[in-house]
């Protein structure tokens, strides 16, 4: 497999990993193998969906964010928070309390990501009108989905809507507003509070954009703990803080399932959870489903409310945000004089910059660049498959017999890694017992292959 230069927020901590293979078995792109008792990531296959992070029993998979004290490198420190962050807190804790604690923690400004929706919603409908010949158009909102399409559905990259997500629009607005206030660029730090790993990867290694306005990223679970603790300790009910304008109902629910689809014209469908998305994209790719205009696809169940870095139950988060949206009345929300202006005041500026570059396919499925070579490798895979037991037990350190066969054809694994093959080779005298134990150790490490002491007393 070719070495990739892709930034991943997901990292496996070798010192903590116990090589239990849970992550390997749930990875939707088969990006993980077990070697020497530790999980190993194929960087070019990973789409940062975070499924591995969810199942790791020892928290050995981490999402690499910036050190919190990094914010103090900047004189002006903006927390760019998504609406689902507010949704993490119980209903009796107000937006004001949350924001005032965040200011206590060191931020100088707080701005909600979904403000960018006011610009984006209009642009999406313009885009779908101009590009109505492309069916379906696919939202660029979820970075894990954009990457999934790049690696697994390369024929569909041109279906992805080439518009920035709300995050980038809001960041561009903040930067412009603060520069206009006479603040030097180097004194502005914009910190995004992320509900998932994919957003971090999208910021550190953007697809279709040359750079990002976002200075750093803070994991949502980390900030939630910090803020919730302070709210509990201080119990300050009354606190006057300059709030930015409240999000509209549409903006509040944008990151939830059906948040986008219900505001786009034509036949629209919203699909969440990565396996559901994969199943649907297979059908789209075969043109079994043809007359859908717009697809909202999200990697997490219940979309961002189910992000891997959220703490609250995703269904409760959705309920809270929907309640907030229902209660919103524009006329009841006067803008505080110290708050940022409405984002619509820079509509033209932002819309002129909203388009992203074409998204390039980078297929992980091809066995070789050269078709003749790929055919040779495929024939080899097919020959190997005839020998494998097809039980997908994972003892070989690969997630399936098919994955092992491909690894062997690519020269990255040996057929004796298969436990069934080992037994037969031992029986035929083609492999010594010592060699077979050695192979097991090379996959699962010394610990797991050295547990046997005395089974008589069991």
């Amino acid at each position: 497999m070719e070495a990739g230069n892709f930034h991943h927020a997901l990292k496996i901590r070798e010192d903590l990993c116990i090589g239990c293979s849970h992550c390997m078995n749930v990875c939707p792109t088969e990006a993980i193998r077990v070697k020497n008792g530790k999980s190993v990531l194929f960087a070019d296959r990973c789409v940062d969906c975070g499924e591995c992070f969810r199942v790791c029993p020892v928290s050995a998979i981490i999402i690499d964010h910036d050190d919190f004290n990094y914010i103090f490198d900047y004189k002006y420190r903006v927390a760019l928070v998504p609406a689902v962050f507010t949704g993490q807190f119980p209903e009796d804790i107000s937006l004001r309390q949350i924001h005032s604690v965040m200011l206590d923690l060191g931020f100088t400004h707080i701005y909600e990501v979904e403000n960018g929706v006011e610009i984006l919603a209009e642009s999406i409908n313009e885009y779908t009108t101009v590009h109505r010949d492309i069916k379906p158009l696919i939202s660029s909102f979820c970075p894990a989905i954009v990457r999934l399409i790049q690696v697994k559905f390369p024929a569909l990259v041109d279906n992805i809507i080439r518009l920035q997500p709300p995050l980038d629009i809001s960041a561009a607005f903040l930067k412009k507003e603060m520069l206009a206030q006479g603040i030097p660029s180097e004194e502005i730090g914009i910190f995004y509070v992320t509900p998932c790993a994919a957003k971090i990867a999208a910021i550190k290694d953007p697809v279709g954009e040359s750079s990002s306005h976002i200075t750093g990223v803070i994991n949502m679970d980390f900030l939630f703990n910090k803020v919730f603790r302070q709210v509990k300790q201080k119990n300050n009910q009354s606190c006057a803080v300059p709030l930015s304008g409240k999000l509209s109902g549409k903006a509040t629910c944008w990151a939830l399932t059906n948040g986008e689809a219900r505001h786009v014209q034509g036949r629209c469908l919203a699909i969440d959870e990565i396996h559901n998305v994969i199943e649907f994209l297979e059908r789209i790719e075969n043109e079994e489903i043809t007359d859908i205009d717009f697809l909202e696809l999200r990697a997490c169940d219940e979309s961002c409310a189910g992000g891997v870095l959220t703490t609250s139950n995703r269904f409760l988060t959705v309920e809270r945000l929907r309640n907030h949206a229902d209660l919103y009345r524009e006329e009841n929300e006067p803008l505080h004089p110290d708050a940022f202006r409405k984002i619509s005041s820079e509509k033209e500026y932002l819309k002129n910059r909203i388009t992203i570059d074409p998204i390039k396919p980078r297929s992980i499925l091809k066995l070789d660049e050269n078709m003749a070579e790929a055919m040779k490798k495929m024939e080899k895979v097919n020959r190997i498959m005839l020998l494998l037991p097809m039980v997908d037990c994972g003892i070989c350190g690969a997630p399936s017999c098919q994955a092992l066969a491909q690894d062997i054809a690519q020269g990255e694994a040996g057929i004796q890694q298969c436990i069934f093959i080992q037994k037969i080779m031992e029986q035929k005298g083609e492999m010594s017992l010592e060699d077979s134990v050695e192979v097991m150790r090379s996959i699962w490490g010394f610990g797991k292959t050295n547990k046997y002491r005395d089974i008589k007393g069991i």
Partner: protein
Amino acid sequence: MMHFEFHVEGGNFLKAGAASSQLKKILKQLNVDPKTIKRVVVAMYEAEVNIVAHAYKGDIYIDIDTKKIEITLIDEGPGIPDIDLAMKQGFSTASSVVREMGFGAGMGLPNIKNNSDELTITSEVNKGTTVKFATYLNQ
């Protein structure tokens, strides 16, 4: 040159498209250009669904080399009495049940023609139909 074979059951819409999905996977692994894959798979899907919708059973034979992809679908079924008529867009003999499932819009054969570089159809009434089409690579 690589050869693949698939069997198709008539009337089983649960499995309609399974062979096409397999072919798509193979072509992706062989690093065939995505646009070519799309054409081949769309043509193959139409032809595969035709067998499911109209015939009793059928077999699909696929030959792939670096120059072209050749697909032959041989079915046992009612056959097509007038191939020229069946090639017209919108013409369909599919039953209302089949149409309710979203198939049988009469786009099948024309769609195969549009998505292939060579197409020959031979048919014998009450015996079956053979659809053979090819798509060239790197052209």
